[in-house]
């Protein structure tokens, strides 16, 4: 079967083309961001850092970047402990309602994001959270929770709860035994979940389009507006930086997960 039959060759060719289709758009942005041209031209006429300069010298883009980083960090700080606690409870408890709660925590992945966004907008409009920092952070905590829960539950699956029993039989209370015995062993999945929550908050666009405004607009909202109005290679520079940041975080997360083996 490993002989190169015509079918096998066709398989190679089709797969290679599909992979090119998947990768090409990701690779095309960086060269455009280093181009000197005002409009999208490829290949770029000459090398230039002017679009990076534009980005770093524009107060509106800088303010948006600060908002994005603050929101993403606060999201991780809140969503990670909430998600870990929930995953731990779901995996340890035998209550039947836990199954339902588990499903509820995955809702953000199931409900189309546009519906969530509009719904949150209506609720925020009533309670005065539109265009505020707490509003933005809360929404992203909700959207990031499933990633933490899924990652930590997967980590807990390979953890033997008997170990914690032993610690408790030796006189530790539940909380101490969790921090001393369980947490160190699931640390990698906790970190991975936190990183995914960070990336989710950094990339989140649709909810921000509806509920953010004024000085609390994240990068993605400004990018969306810019893309709709006029295309400027500044976006390519920002895109390149965002992509680089995401990739580094993912590598970090997967390196951690691998170490936990």
């Amino acid at each position: 079967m490993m002989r190169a039959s015509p079918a096998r060759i066709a398989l190679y060719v089709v797969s290679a083309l599909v992979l090119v289709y998947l990768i090409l758009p990701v690779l095309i942005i960086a060269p455009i961001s280093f181009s000197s041209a005002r409009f999208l031209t490829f290949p770029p006429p000459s090398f230039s850092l002017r679009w990076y300069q534009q980005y770093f010298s524009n107060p509106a883009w800088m303010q948006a970047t600060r908002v994005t980083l603050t929101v993403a960090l606060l999201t991780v700080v809140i969503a990670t402990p909430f998600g870990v606690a929930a995953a731990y409870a779901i995996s340890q408890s035998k209550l039947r309602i836990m199954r339902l709660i588990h499903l509820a925590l995955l809702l953000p992945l199931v409900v189309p994001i546009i519906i969530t966004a509009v719904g949150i907008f209506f609720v925020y409009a009533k309670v005065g959270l539109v265009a505020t920092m707490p509003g933005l952070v809360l929404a992203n905590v909700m959207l990031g929770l499933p990633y933490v829960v899924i990652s930590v539950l997967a980590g807990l699956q390979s953890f033997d709860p008997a170990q914690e029993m032993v610690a408790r039989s030796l006189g530790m209370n539940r909380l101490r035994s969790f921090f001393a015995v369980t947490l160190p062993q699931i640390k990698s999945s906790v970190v991975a979940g936190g990183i995914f929550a960070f990336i989710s908050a950094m990339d989140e666009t649709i909810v921000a389009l509806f509920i953010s405004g004024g000085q609390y607009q994240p990068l993605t909202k400004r990018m969306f507006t810019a893309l709709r109005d006029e295309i400027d290679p500044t976006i390519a520079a920002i895109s390149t930086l965002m992509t680089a940041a995401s990739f580094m975080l993912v590598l970090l997360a997967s390196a951690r997960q691998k170490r936990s083996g």
Partner: protein
Amino acid sequence: MLALVSPALLVILALIVLPVGWLAWQSIYHDGFTLENYRRVFTEDVYWRSFALTFEISLAVTAIALLLGYPVAYLANSVPKGWSILILSLVVLPFWTSVLVRAYAWLALLQRTGVINQFLRYLDVISEPLALVHNTFGTVVATVHILLPFMVLPLYATMQKIPNDLMQAGASLGASPSLTFMRVFLPLSLPGVLAGCTMVFVLCLGFYITPELLGGGRTVMVSMLVSRNVELYNQFGAASAVAVVLLISVLVIFFVVSRFISLDRVLGQK
């Protein structure tokens, strides 16, 4: 144990259950109960056409993603481990690039003065630039690109579980490779096909950024109907009704699919 889940649960209740409930309420209540919003959604042309278009695009995207994704998953499953890791990394790579960034990349590639048009003109294949974007074509190309990983990963996971012995048994009984594939491998991979198709279809139904940026205003998908009713026309009731119909469609699809395969598989947990 309930105390441990309560912070997370509270966030979910306040920020997704309550908002969606609010939408549902708002769609039927405005100074008294009314089904006016639903009457509009089901009878007015604008709404009907948008729902029809959204289902058509979602079907097309799902079919294309399956056609492109199956060979890749098959290849990844049939090569040595190192190669399959490489293939899967390439599949997942774009997954970690923001949807906005990719919309920008497709604009750069597909627009009139974009990379592809320039290349084709350079080769003298065309004399006038092709309209590749700001239409349904561009939307579909970019949407398939974004959703393809959701097809390949469940397919690969399912194929991994198909024992190699079965294929060898088929071959030893005299079946040709293509017959073994059709009769043994393909049927056994169907749960993965169903899982991948469900996820792609459902995600596509609610797609917003890609059609908004690459559709050129003509490809009005349901999600854009919702946002326009909120942002442009202040028609909160109508927007809510559209959202509720969309949500019910999604839930019905998940429910029907869950009769056949575990939802954990669809949500990529297994």
